[in-house]
């Protein structure tokens, strides 16, 4: 067995182990926690890149835990889809961790630092576990690790976050219990928990009502977790009041990982043939279209910047689920299948990660939560606000940004699926995005820097002409993510003329037999 084939399990186990190492190391030296976290996540990122390379060149990685053969033991399976999501998870975690170091030194009491980084490390390990596992029950356990650490991290500042975290806990637990019930139904008819084994045993049972109920339960369970309308009610509060890098993780990664889990269960356990028996995916497309408009309209109504971004996340999840919903009815392999959805998972992680980190920077420096508090900050924090503008125009969809690429691919998918109403919805959504992001950009740059506005609670900083930029450790992730919004856009765009789109996403479509639908 090659070393690289051990990497998936190593990422999860060393991740959990590192969590407790941080806890013990924190007893000796509090400063070391952040560095241990960053070095572990960085080494995992390198490992995940090796995994991605191996999966694309050699093939799918199977790892049997404890050497037990798959139907009995737990199996970790990494194919092109997992490897792609794994790289995104670890990359955004590294960025959020870099940012968290200075942000939490400033915001959180010192005695909480050790447990904060312990929980953060366990969160990252849990996310990696959900992504690499090939066993439905193992996925349940690891999702609970993610969920429990996320509840605690959201609640870490205290105050308003407690209620938000409690709401998320109740809704998230109900959601994951629906998933547990769904896999219980599947277990009762197939007698196995392994995804690949279930895929083989299920087809004769496709007409069974029980299998439909199981799929419905899993769909509802994951819909709560990924905040699909109308089950999104936990999201705005949790995103708005959590520490900023946790908001970025929640919006950029955690809800996307549950989208991944939904895609994995839909296409790896069930198959495209099952999904075509009922109009499930058509319904998902319409719900997603409603989510796009609803999220954007409510975002316009918000005065709290992070809350506005949270509603924007609801709308962006609509884009991803619209891509998923259309994936089984696209006729050509060139544009269709899961390509737009998977593309937007990366794009949304970059854009929303950057935007939430910038919103955190405003809170860090000026304690400015509301949009009206941001007057004239464009000149005081040129780099941070420049990053905000780059990410915001990506959200609107200005070429060559990543948001533009997603919209182009979605429009091609609409054409392939023969549905033109969605195109109108997409254009309307771009306009609404323009409205609420332009409002912020206008306040940042075009209103006079209010001496009356926010200068009273930091008079000591108010020396004229002095730049009030955030520390370098916080600036690096913000600028990296913002520039990647443009660079990845160009990378995606230059791939378009090549037949077969992008190798990773093409590989995924081939794996699930998507993109060649003949009605």
């Amino acid at each position: 067995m090659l070393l690289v084939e051990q990497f998936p399990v190593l990422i999860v186990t060393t991740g959990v182990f590192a969590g407790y190492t941080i806890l013990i190391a924190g007893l000796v030296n509090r400063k070391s926690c952040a560095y241990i976290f960053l070095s572990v996540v960085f080494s995992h990122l390198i490992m995940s890149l090796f995994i991605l390379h191996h999966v694309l060149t050699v093939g799918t990685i199977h790892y049997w835990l404890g050497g037990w053969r798959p139907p009995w033991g737990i199996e970790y399976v990494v194919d092109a889809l997992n490897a792609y999501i794994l790289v995104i998870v670890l990359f955004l975690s590294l960025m959020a961790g870099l940012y968290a170091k200075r942000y939490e030194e400033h915001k959180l009491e010192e005695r909480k630092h050790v447990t904060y980084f312990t929980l953060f490390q366990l969160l990252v390990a849990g996310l990696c576990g959900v992504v690499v596992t090939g066993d439905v029950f193992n996925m349940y356990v690891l999702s609970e690790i993610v969920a429990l650490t996320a509840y605690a991290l959201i609640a870490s500042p205290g105050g308003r976050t407690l209620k938000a975290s409690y709401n998320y806990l109740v809704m998230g637990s109900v959601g994951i219990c629906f998933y547990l019930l769904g896999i219980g139904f599947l277990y009762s008819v197939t007698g196995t928990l392994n995804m690949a084994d279930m895929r083989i045993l299920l087809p004769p049972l496709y007409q069974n009502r029980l299998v439909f109920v199981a799929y419905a339960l899993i769909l509802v369970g994951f819909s709560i977790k990924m905040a699909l309308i109308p089950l999104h009610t936990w999201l705005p509060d949790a995103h708005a009041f959590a520490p900023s890098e946790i908001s970025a993780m929640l919006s950029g990664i955690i809800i996307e990982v549950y989208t991944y889990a939904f895609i994995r269960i839909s296409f790896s356990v069930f198959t495209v043939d099952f999904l075509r028996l009922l109009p499930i995916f058509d319904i998902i497309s319409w719900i997603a279209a409603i989510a796009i408009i609803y999220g954007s309209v409510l975002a316009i109504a918000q005065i709290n910047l992070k809350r506005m971004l949270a509603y924007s996340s609801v709308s962006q999840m609509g884009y991803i689920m619209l891509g998923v919903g259309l994936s089984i009815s696209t006729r050509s392999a060139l544009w269709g299948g899961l390509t737009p959805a998977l593309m937007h998972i990366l794009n949304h992680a970059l854009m929303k990660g950057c935007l939430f980190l910038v919103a955190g920077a405003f809170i860090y420096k000026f304690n400015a939560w509301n949009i009206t508090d941001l007057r004239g900050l464009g000149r005081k924090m040129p780099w941070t606000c420049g990053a905000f503008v780059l990410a915001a125009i990506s959200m609107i969809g200005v070429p060559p940004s990543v948001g533009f690429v997603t919209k182009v691919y979605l429009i091609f998918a609409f054409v392939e699926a023969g549905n033109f109403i969605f195109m109108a919805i997409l254009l309307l959504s771009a306009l609404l995005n323009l409205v609420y992001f332009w409002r912020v950009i206008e306040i940042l740059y075009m209103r006079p820097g209010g001496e009356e506005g926010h200068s009273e609670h930091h008079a000591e900083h108010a020396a004229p002409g002095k730049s009030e930029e955030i520390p370098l450790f916080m600036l690096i992730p913000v600028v990296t993510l913002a520039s990647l919004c443009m660079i990845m856009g160009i990378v995606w765009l230059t791939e378009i003329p090549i037949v077969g789109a992008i190798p990773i996403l093409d590989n995924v479509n081939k794996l699930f037999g998507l993109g060649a639908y003949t009605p």
Partner: protein
Amino acid sequence: MLEWFVQEVFEKYNFWTAIFIILIGIYATIAKGNLLKKLIGLSIFQTGIFLFYISLGDIGSLANWGLRTATPPILWEEGVELGYVYANPLPHVLMLTGIVVSAATTGVALALVVRMYQEYGTIEEDEIMRKEMELDQR
């Protein structure tokens, strides 16, 4: 009619009980305004799911009318000779994990409720919302 009743209700009574408990749990989670009662509802909901899983392991009872034939999955020579049907241990083991997860969730939720009580002086949802609204207006 009687036969249908026996087959669908009596033979599967623990599945009916599981459905009943799950529904009580979901009702309490949604309808109660007290945060602790919500949490109790959540625990009841999870317990219903455990009962459902554990019932799955009992493969013997569906074979004979109402008679429970599956024995605990302990291998002993006399039992093999008598031709006992063993219960499937896997769902039970899964639910051990499920109970641990449920206990952890309840623990985190209780910690949050205690913190909220310290912060707002109440655990009624509508009162907390009113206090948050007052905070927003200020």
